[in-house]
């Protein structure tokens, strides 16, 4: 799939330093009520497999993709992603290969791309160098779950200068005061964590989640994405009208593990109903 003219303009505009993730999401939201965000662990099972996964995702109309840079201590991830991180590293995947892959992906596909990973990847490279590489590779933001916002002031400032969005997580255990603080620094979108725990387990979609999304809304006007345990059509049906983005992580990798491209295509068809 080739990129549309407006998307190319947006890519060009990125260099000017404006935050475009939110604008991009709003534009997509004008066309459909619930966007899809997905996740790929770079180099697992291989970069070629990643590419085929992404082709299926693009076919399914996915709007935003997290490319996870593998880390040796993925303490916020569940078992399937832990294994993916580990095997990717064992196969020799390096950070710079992930950036090269991201550049190819963002050039080729219509969806936007985020870096997902752990703070040591950013820290070891240097915050400015990391952001420059991210911008150069066409990424529009990043999710770094082990970097609390009180430690992220400098990174956020450098990101603003480059028009890159730091995606902030809001969680059900946060106090209202904390949610307010998170809302103030968030750019692009909010990642609302549907429940306690790590990625991959099932989430009960119900009144508690609805109330939590409502709490998030009190502290942000950004599009809200809901992740952790979103895995089937019923979840998407539940989220429609309550959130702007459904975030599918483990469920897609699980489908790929079970039956490769065919199973993944079937998984996304199932989501569409």
């Amino acid at each position, binding site marked *: 799939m080739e990129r549309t003219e407006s998307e190319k303009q947006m890519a060009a505009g990125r260099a000017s330093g404006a935050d475009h993730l939110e604008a991009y999401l709003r534009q997509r939201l004008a066309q459909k009520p619930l966007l899809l965000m997905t996740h790929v662990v770079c180099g697992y099972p291989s970069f070629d497999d990643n590419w085929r996964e992404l082709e299926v995702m693009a076919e399914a109309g996915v709007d935003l993709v997290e490319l996870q840079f*593998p*880390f*040796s*201590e*993925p*303490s*916020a991830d*569940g*078992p399937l992603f*832990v*294994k993916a991180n*580990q095997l990717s*590293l064992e196969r020799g995947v*390096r*950070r710079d290969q992930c950036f090269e892959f991201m550049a190819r992906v963002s050039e080729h596909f219509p969806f936007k791309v985020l870096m997902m990973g*752990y*703070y*040591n*990847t950013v*820290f*070891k*490279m240097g915050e400015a160098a990391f952001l420059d590489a991210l911008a150069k590779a066409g990424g529009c933001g990043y999710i770094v*779950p*082990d*970097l*609390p916002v009180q*430690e992220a002031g400098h990174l956020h400032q450098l990101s603003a200068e480059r028009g890159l969005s730091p995606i*902030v*997580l*809001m*969680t*059900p*255990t*946060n*106090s209202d005061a*904390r949610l307010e603080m*998170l809302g103030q620094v968030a750019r692009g979108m909010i990642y609302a*964590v549907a429940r*306690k*725990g*790590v990625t991959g387990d099932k989430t009960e979609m119900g009144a508690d989640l609805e109330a939590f999304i409502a709490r998030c809304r009190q502290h942000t006007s950004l599009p809200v994405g809901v992740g952790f345990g979103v895995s089937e059509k019923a979840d998407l049906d539940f989220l429609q009208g309550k959130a702007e983005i459904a975030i599918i992580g483990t469920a897609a990798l699980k489908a790929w593990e079970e039956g490769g491209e065919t199973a993944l295509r079937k998984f996304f068809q199932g989501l569409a109903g």
Partner: protein
Amino acid sequence: MDLFDFADGREGYYGDYGGAFLPEILTTTIEELQACFRECKSDPAFWQEFVELMRSYSGRPTPVTYLENLSNKLGGARIYVKREDLGHTGSHKINNVMGQGLVCKRLGKKRVIAETGAGQHGFATATMAARFGFECKIYMGAVDVARQRPNVFWMENLGATVVAVEDGQRTLKDAINECLRDWVTNMADTHYVLGTACGPHPFPEMVSFFQAIIGREAREQIVAEAGRLPDRVFACVGGGSNAIGIFQGFMDDNVELVGVEAGGHGPGSGLHAARLAYDDASVGVAQGYKTYFLQNDDGNMLETHSIAAGLDYIGINPILVNLWQQERVRFEAATDDAVREALQLTMRTEGLIPALESTHAFAQAIVEAPKMSKDEVILINQSGRGDKDIFTVADAIDDRHWRQFIRDKAAEYGED
């Protein structure tokens, strides 16, 4: 010198090191813990309760012993040893876990989790949980479970559940990751009893606070036994909790403090766990804190190695890193070979069996003592006992009678 007098906005930082880098979902839990610990720390009755518990349950104060034979044999400084091996469960780990047990009680939590490498901390935590009536789950790398069965045996018999962690290198660091995963799920009723002075704030401070009991006792005892302060204090450094424990007793004195890391197969071998003594580590952020890690240029962690499982770890106590940069603590490393020799020498001359971890401190003291004068005094922290690690020690010194015993025992059990 107050190590914990943080500047505004720098709580939990020691120079550039430390901090609290945790997933957002744990923010409330860690703030609760910070507040509870602060309350405990400022309450003199809490420290009294801790000291009384350690007296009645673990036989504190542990003595300081003069090693006359070893001192004479080396012909230099007089060598004394602080006997943390005599505490309940056989190491200094009991100080930290009983303290955190009291904190957990105050938090009103009913379940504890802990990581363990060699098994000492898991063993101590299982003991504490039994005593306090907490539910207990211990995460231990599958490699460590395989090589430390005796400690697993005790943990299970004390009522704890032991989970063999199959991710990553399947050692201590992977057990820490698994604890963090449990904690982000069960924080409402669960306290994470971190075993060393690493990880996110307030753990380095809290663990140091409880381990300070070693240094408080040791300073008084060495003055009584040797008639003066020591010239040098040696302690092994894995995570660095026994070291910061004894060093705190001498922070304001003119005493040289020496941390001894696991030199493994030596510098340049890639098979060691020396973060500061060798040049292979660099600053990073992982497992909740900023410190020196053995990592590659991408920030992914390297394999580590030590003859002593308890020292076999990628990161190091951020308080010690800061003291090292201020040149208040000197860092050295002892190789596996030096440790084997030091253990045999200590056993034969003094009848003491230090844990392989603690033997690193002995090995460095044995190198330095002959170059010091007879008026000078060395204090070594014997952080644990080695006799309970009979399988590991027998392997380390390659004892053929022991190997035969195991073969016979295996034959006796036969096939299931």
